[in-house]
């Protein structure tokens, strides 16, 4: 009595490349994204080789004598995942060219968090992108240095409370700067650049497939809700990732050949409060003193969203 297999049933036929028994927090967004990316790679018949920057995902999955990886995996340091993988990819080219290796199924995937991508790893990432190594770089963006205890990064949005953009009686706002627009930076390398969310998994999977098909680098920026740093109930990880998209704080879009495309336009664009109020890192905004910052977040969100829509309409 063979049941008909849906898309997800078929995806679930694959061998799990990220094993359980890792030490990530209950409800962590990291492993949800990793599983989606790796299962897609498997589904497409690829054999992923992965590099991981230092961070939660790395420390929780590669803790000697344990490893959660059913694929070849390397961790080197915090700021050099792109450089490390570019070395492995170069070795692949060299050995293939010299007839010492024959495997056209191998794909290279790098995972870094926002700290290892927007900040300390940006130079290595830019260098690897410019050199044109064939790899998919996935940034699991949890909007702060979560592995060291929620310090602000350049991915941390305006008005966020972190442990180094503290909120107190003399400071009602938290982080004063906007987040760095990594999408535009990576797109300026003229590589396939996309933003995704694990809540819109079909879109994410499509982007992973596209990224892996590139004959060069591809960059995927994925929102990764962090239960501990953001302060919410673990069960809401995917719900929050959805609210981020539905409020247009985290738009789903891609940039390719200097043309952008907004992949999802919510029919009913929710106010940012809907997303913010579920997280402790924004609790200070829901006091009289936080009102202004709250309005500013809405304004920044609208500006960016409108920019994306206008640019797409203008054909760029």
């Amino acid at each position: 009595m063979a049941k008909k297999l849906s898309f997800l049933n078929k995806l679930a036929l694959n061998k799990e490349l990220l094993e359980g028994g890792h030490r990530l927090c209950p409800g962590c967004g990291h492993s949800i994204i990793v599983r989606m990316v790796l299962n897609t790679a498997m589904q497409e018949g690829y054999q992923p080789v992965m590099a991981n920057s230092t961070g939660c995902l790395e420390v929780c999955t590669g803790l000697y004598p344990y490893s959660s990886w059913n694929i070849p995996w390397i961790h080197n340091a915090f700021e050099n995942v792109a450089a490390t993988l570019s070395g492995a990819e170069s070795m692949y080219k060299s050995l293939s060219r010299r007839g010492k290796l024959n495997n056209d199924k191998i794909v290279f995937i790098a995972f870094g968090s926002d700290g290892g991508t927007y900040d300390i790893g940006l130079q290595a990432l830019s260098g690897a992108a410019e050199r044109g190594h064939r790899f998919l770089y996935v940034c699991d963006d949890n909007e702060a240095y979560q592995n060291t205890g929620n310090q602000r990064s350049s991915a941390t949005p305006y008005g966020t409370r972190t442990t180094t953009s503290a909120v107190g009686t003399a400071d009602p706002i938290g982080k004063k700067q906007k987040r760095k627009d990594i999408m535009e930076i990576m797109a300026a390398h003229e590589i396939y650049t996309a933003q995704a969310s694990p809540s819109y998994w079909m879109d994410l999977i499509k982007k992973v497939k596209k990224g892996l098909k590139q004959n060069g680098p591809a960059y995927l920026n994925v929102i990764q809700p962090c239960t501990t740093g953001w302060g919410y109930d673990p069960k809401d990880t995917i719900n929050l990732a959805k609210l981020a998209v539905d409020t247009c704080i985290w738009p789903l879009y891609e940039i390719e050949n200097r043309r952008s495309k907004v992949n999802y336009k919510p029919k009913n664009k929710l106010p940012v409060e809907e997303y913010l109020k579920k997280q402790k890192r924004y609790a200070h905004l829901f006091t009289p003193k936080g009102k202004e910052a709250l309005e500013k977040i809405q304004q920044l969100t609208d500006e960016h969203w409108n920019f994306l829509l206008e640019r797409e309409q203008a054909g760029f």
Partner: protein
Amino acid sequence: MSKRVALSGNEAAAHAIRQINPDVIAAFPITPSTPIPMAVSQFIADGKMTTEFVTVESEHSAISACVGASAAGGRVMTATSANGLALMFEILYIASGMRRPIVAPVVARALSGPLNIHGDFSDVYGVRESGWVELFCQDSQEFYDTIIQSVKLAENESVLTPVMPIADGFDISHTVENWYMEDDEAVQKFIGEYHSKYSLLDTEHPVTFGAWAPPDWYYEHRRSQLEGLLNACDAFKAVDKEFGEKFGRSYGVIEKYHSDDADIVVIGMGAVSGTIKDAVDEMRANGISAGFLRVKLFRPFPYKDIIEALKGAKAIGVFDRCITAGAQTAALCTDIRSAMYGKSNIPIVNYTYGLGGRDTTVSHVKTVIEQLKEAAEGKKIDLINYINLRA
């Protein structure tokens, strides 16, 4: 057949690399080692080598890419100097901790500040605790030979540790000397094929590289790593012997130049050796019992060979091309004093020389030998002395 050529130390390194023809090189330009990656690029463009050359955006990425490439199972090299090596600092420890047999010729140079592009050992001394093998060379011939030997040493099953062949910036790198270049095939045959037991590209047998070790594991791993480094001493002797049998040149972990029967022994490393040897010859001609002990293998430190070689000495002067940053003496002298602890009560003093490309001449060394002679006779002498420094 080997052929005699007149080329610089950088060119000697470049030719050794061309003949090794590693699978991957990742390198970034920095004076005075820049001519090495330049030559590599030209060799590749001319079809004389087939290495995959990764032109990274920094030395940090150079060594990071080397670690990734090495984990992917092939032979890997880079080259650098000074601030470049300092920028690599973090990853040097990771490369040795992950037991990657990378060979990285270093053209030694002063560290800023103030900025100075000339030769000294600030850079290579700075990373002496990084778990890499450090081999100091005295001329282009030795630099060329040592780079070739290093491949075999690094890949030795009992070693599997990265190796740094070292030559003084400008004094060796930019000085044209006569030296013998071996045949490409002979070099290839000497180094042999590299077979890595585990590889990132072996998707059938996935291996995890770079897991972190909590307190109940880190210590064991560091001790295990040390074993590989310590094995490099005997392994180098064996590689060096084989090299000698094949090519007629071998070096030993130390070189004894009239030191066996000498009362006064000068100890040093690298390019200054020629100058010291000339001074020793002149002093010997004047009836002074002087000798020179050259340390080639600095890490791991071949203290047993050194103790044995210094048995008859009455006074020792150790040349360090680096200032001590507040320790009692600079690195080589500290190691010698430590090796000689409890062995004898003779004076062992330190000579700082050659910082940032400062000249050291035969007459400077002769003065040193005279001083040491007086010290052997009981005269008090400063523990640290500065050669050719304006007061």
